[in-house]
């Protein structure tokens, strides 16, 4: 037992969790914590808006597989975090957010900068805590990290009243915690596994739908082995892009509203669908009634509530994906012969041939598909890509091929404009050894561009490629296609000048006019010690295809 303040206990507990970096922004209700942080070995990275520090923590978490930590003060600091926390919740990212709170004696009095952040974040956190005594802090931190990082990961918030930060107590730092209402280590039921094996053994046209869970449980290699054994083509979701190499002959790419033509087509032909750590979101499945209505579906998920939530399942398996895939593989390997080819694979190749050429290399020089293909050539496979939200994101999903897990980080569930740039900064902190590139839209980048200050001053160089259509492009696309071209509030004009904006923050900015120039600038950026913003003017009329209109099924995919 050691006597120390709540603030000291917090930093000590974080240190014991091996936290090396905190993304944050202080304020009155956090001064005791920041006072301790000043002398700590933990690096603090100062953001310019709390939304961004939460995204940075998430970028860090998703690039590294560790827990990302962010901090904010009470009131507006805490409410600014909300978007970032919600984003992490929707995408099952492990972050711990620490907020300051008014002193316990002031809670409920509408004190200055008081906000009920526990109430506000209850639906968007995996769990939240408000320790009322300093002595509770070590255990609370231990529980927060345990909850955030195990089972289905998610954000956890710890709201610490200011007096709890400054009061001292005898502290005990537990090495382990048991939470009786939380048991994330669910072993798959052998009977269910057997049913799945029977279905998969007989499958003639199996498809694997890999979800974000594959990345979260580090099961990419197992998934690949399974696909090769079953000769099952693999579709991914936006969340799992990268868990299966997109240059693999069995890769069909991402499916969904802006899925690849072959993914959207072939999944509907499957006789058995193995859904691994996917949650059947509407953007992925399209109209759910028309999603694989006659297919036998096996669904593996560690979160029991995901099973049957959106889609009735034939063989549900609750369990850790990595463990479950091991069990499935061991049995299937004994039953199935290794094959090189199958009628189903011939069908896959034929479909791919049919769509070939329709998809890429179309349009002018700086058309996004061409540009992104060029970007891929310029970057090593291990480079980490983040995206903003809108057309830029969907172009990235369709045309930027990814080969390794944790190298594609995008706001999937919440679709948060402004996510990509701070997430890139967080990812770069986690992976300083690899280039990190945010594929951005002009609208989205403008939302969190003030993080340029953080990236420059904290020396976290990333590359931002703005596909600049001077539009809220995705909204404009819907208005063009479904509202008779009646543009409403989507024209962004020429403000800001992103080159000057970058320079104003001490970053470098370039506006490029050709693929050659783009190549040169990217090569330079890869060697640069400061952040590079590359403004790529593209046509405001460009659409993203394929597309499934809202409310329609995958079979109604329009190809352009």
């Amino acid at each position, binding site marked *: 037992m050691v006597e120390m303040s709540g603030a000291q206990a917090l930093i000590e507990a974080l240190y014991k969790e091996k936290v090396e970096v905190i993304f944050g922004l202080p304020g009155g209700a956090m001064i005791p914590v920041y006072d301790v942080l000043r002398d700590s070995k933990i690096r603090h990275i100062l953001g310019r808006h709390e939304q961004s520090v939460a995204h940075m923590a998430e970028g860090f978490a998703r690039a590294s597989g560790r827990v990302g930590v962010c901090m904010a003060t009470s009131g507006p600091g805490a409410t600014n975090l909300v978007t970032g926390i919600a984003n992490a919740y929707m995408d099952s990212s492990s972050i711990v957010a620490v907020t300051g709170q008014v002193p316990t004696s002031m809670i409920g009095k509408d004190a200055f900068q008081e906000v009920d952040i526990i109430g506000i974040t209850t*639906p968007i956190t995996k*769990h939240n805590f*408000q320790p009322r005594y300093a002595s509770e802090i070590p255990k609370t931190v231990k529980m927060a990290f345990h909850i955030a990082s195990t089972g289905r990961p998610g954000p956890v918030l710890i709201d610490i009243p200011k007096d709890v930060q400054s009061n001292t107590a005898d502290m005990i730092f537990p090495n382990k915690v048991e939470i*009786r*209402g939380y048991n994330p280590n669910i072993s798959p039921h052998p009977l269910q596994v057997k049913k799945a094996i029977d279905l998969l053994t007989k499958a003639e046209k199996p498809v694997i739908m890999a979800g974000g869970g594959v990345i979260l449980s580090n099961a990419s290699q197992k998934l690949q082995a399974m696909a090769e054994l079953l000769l099952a083509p693999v579709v991914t979701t936006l969340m799992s892009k990268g868990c299966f190499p997109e240059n693999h002959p069995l890769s069909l790419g991402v499916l969904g509203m802006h899925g690849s033509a072959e993914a959207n087509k072939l999944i509907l032909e499957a006789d058995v669908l193995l859904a691994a750590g996917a949650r059947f979101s509407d953007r992925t499945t399209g109209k759910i009634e028309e999603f694989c209505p006659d297919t036998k579906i096996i669904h593996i998920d560690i979160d029991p*509530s995901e099973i049957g939530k959106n889609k009735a399942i034939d063989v549900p398996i609750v369990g850790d994906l990595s463990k479950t895939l091991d069990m499935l593989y061991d049995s299937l390997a004994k039953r199935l012969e290794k094959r090189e080819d199958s009628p189903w694979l011939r069908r896959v190749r034929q479909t791919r041939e049919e769509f070939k050429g329709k998809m890429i290399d179309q349009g002018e020089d700086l058309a996004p598909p061409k540009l992104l293909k060029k970007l891929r050539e310029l970057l090593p496979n291990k480079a980490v890509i983040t995206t903003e939200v809108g057309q830029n994101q969907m172009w990235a999903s369709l045309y930027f091929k990814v080969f390794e897990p944790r190298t594609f980080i995008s706001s999937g569930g919440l679709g948060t404009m402004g996510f990509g740039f701070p997430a890139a900064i967080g990812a770069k902190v986690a992976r300083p050894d690899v280039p990190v590139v945010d594929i951005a839209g002009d609208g989205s980048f403008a939302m969190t561009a003030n993080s340029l200050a953080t990236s420059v001053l904290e020396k976290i160089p990333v590359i931002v490629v703005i596909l600049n259509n001077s539009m809220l492009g995705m909204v404009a696309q819907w208005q063009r296609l479904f509202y008779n071209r009646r543009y409403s509030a989507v024209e962004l004009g020429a403000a800001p000048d992103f080159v000057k904006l970058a320079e104003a923050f001490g970053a470098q900015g370039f506006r490029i006019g050709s693929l050659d120039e783009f190549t040169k600038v990217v090569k330079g950026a890869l060697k640069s010690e400061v952040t590079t913003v590359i403004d790529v003017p593209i046509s405001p009329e460009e659409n993203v295809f394929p597309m499934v209109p809202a409310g329609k099924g995958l079979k109604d995919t329009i190809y352009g």
Partner: protein
Amino acid sequence: MERRVKKTYIISTIVENKPGVLHKASNMFRCRGFNIDSISVGPTEHKDLSRMTITIKGDSATVEQVVKQLAKLIDVIKVSALSLGSTVVRELALVKLHVADARARSDIINYANVFRSRVVDVAPGSITVEVTGSPDKIDAFITLASTFGIKEIARTGITALVRG
């Protein structure tokens, strides 16, 4: 389809006896669009645990989701959807009735006896009866009471335990 038939379900949960737990649970219902018919919360034989008994109307798929979403909450330790057959179900209601005259008063007292309920307050112009039993019994008493004129009703919501 069996899964789509709507019925009343009783969901019994054991939760941490801590501030904020009721909010977390009830908030889940609101966020996910499930409707609570009644909810009752009280202590159990362990002082650090509470029991929440929730009744909802829904099909079996909905109830399955409700149970799973409740179980997912960290402060919820155990959840079960109880089947009516094997469950003791009780509710308490206080019913305040208009009393027009002495005749009405004695009628009410007689009916209260038939329902094995108790008169707990008598005042000029009103009588308050305490009824305990299954929700059906309470509904029946209320229907009867309405012929006299009901001033106010307070019902506790269902509480339940598995038999045996």
